[in-house]
């Protein structure tokens, strides 16, 4: 179905259930759907698993969601940053679970979820502690680790412009995880700077086709 253009971030995140797995876009603050995360905090869903490259910066956005105790588990590549004190505290206190995934595997495992791939043999991390317990296979003389899809119940992403159908374009390196997460979740919610009339975006330059997008809100 074509995307629903929402009037508010609150409307956009309505109905997210406790226990959901939420994919949250962004690399640092670029592409981070700040207003959607704030709305999710207001909305109140808890016992969440959050999949995102980082584990929150400062005291706002994802960090604020963590601080409220809403997140049971973080799946990410790089939780430790200079301003990740919220995650650091919860982790050291044993109040949050961490599933550490190499950044490319995070992206490729979500891509697999979106592309209907059941599992894939990946060379990244072979022979390291992050591959411990995983199936390993030698193919053409190289060692590969079997990796499974990461699926979301919900994806919250930040894009640049949407048309009224939900076709999305991004801006510079804020593109990062958004297009992949949009393929990997059942309910995809995008915040954008602007919603334009359908037909205004160049069909050759659309990065996320509307088929992947359920709700859009301009913030």
């Amino acid at each position, binding site marked *: *179905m074509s995307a629903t253009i929402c009037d508010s971030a609150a409307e956009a995140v309505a109905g997210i259930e406790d226990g959901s797995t939420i994919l949250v876009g962004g690399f640092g603050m670029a592409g981070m759907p700040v207003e959607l995360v704030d709305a999710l905090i207001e909305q109140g869903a808890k016992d969440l698993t959050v999949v995102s490259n980082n584990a929150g910066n400062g005291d706002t956005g994802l960090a604020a969601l963590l601080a409220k105790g809403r997140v049971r588990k973080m799946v990410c590549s790089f939780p430790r940053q200079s301003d990740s004190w919220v995650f650091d505290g919860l982790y050291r206190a044993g109040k949050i679970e961490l599933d550490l995934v190499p950044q490319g595997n995070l992206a490729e495992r979500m891509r697999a979820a979106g592309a*209907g*791939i059941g599992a894939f043999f990946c060379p990244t991390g072979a022979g390291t502690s992050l591959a411990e317990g995983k199936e390993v296979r030698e193919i053409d003389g190289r060692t590969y680790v079997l990796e499974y899809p990461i699926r979301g119940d919900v994806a919250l992403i930040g894009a640049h412009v949407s048309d009224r159908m939900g076709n999305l374009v991004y801006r510079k390196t804020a593109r990062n995880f958004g297009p992949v997460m949009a*393929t990997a979740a059942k309910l995809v919610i995008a915040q954008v700077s602007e919603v334009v009339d359908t*037909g205004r*975006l160049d069909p050759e330059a*659309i990065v996320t*086709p*509307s088929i992947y997008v359920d709700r859009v809100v301009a913030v």
Partner: protein
Amino acid sequence: MSLDKHAMAELIANDIPRGAYVNLGIGQPTLVADHLPADSGVVLHTENGMLNMGPAATGDQIDPDLMNAGKIPVTELPGSSYFHHADSFAMMRGGHLDVCVLGAFQVSAAGDLANWHTGEPEAIPAVGGAMDLAIGAKSVFVMMTLFAKDGSAKLVEKCSYPLTGVGCVDRVYTDHATFLITPDGVVVRETFGISFDELAARVPVKLLAPAR
């Protein structure tokens, strides 16, 4: 009276939910596009890399860079987008299309589909995107005549032609009846110019009467 291909296409078109993302297979299924209501909001996908495909191109509209999967020149609608083949088939395989309408040689009672190869030894095999389409969409509709030219039913207990996909078909639209493939068996949704009993006698599959 049994349905002609246009009536079948209209029936299918009316069963497609508003705003659905749909792939119409090569051949008769492309007729479905002609019967979609103007305000249906249905978005057509073509596996050679496009969403929101418009009607067939005519005259000056013809552009050799813009064709559908049957290699027929088509047009684009506002909101269309282009993507490469790996992305296009990821979209299909990943279950993002709501409905796919395909032709068939045979469909089995368990929803197995045979539509790519007659299995004749001298035939040159060609599969295209048939296997990808069969397993990809949320709902797979088959559009076919119920009986082959020799009078045998194409809805069968077990396909004799090589399979395209296993247990993938949800509904079968034919000229004589519409069938729902369900976990409980094959349900006849409606018949056209034939009684349920007559149908049951001619189709070698246990048929369940429509729910009332």
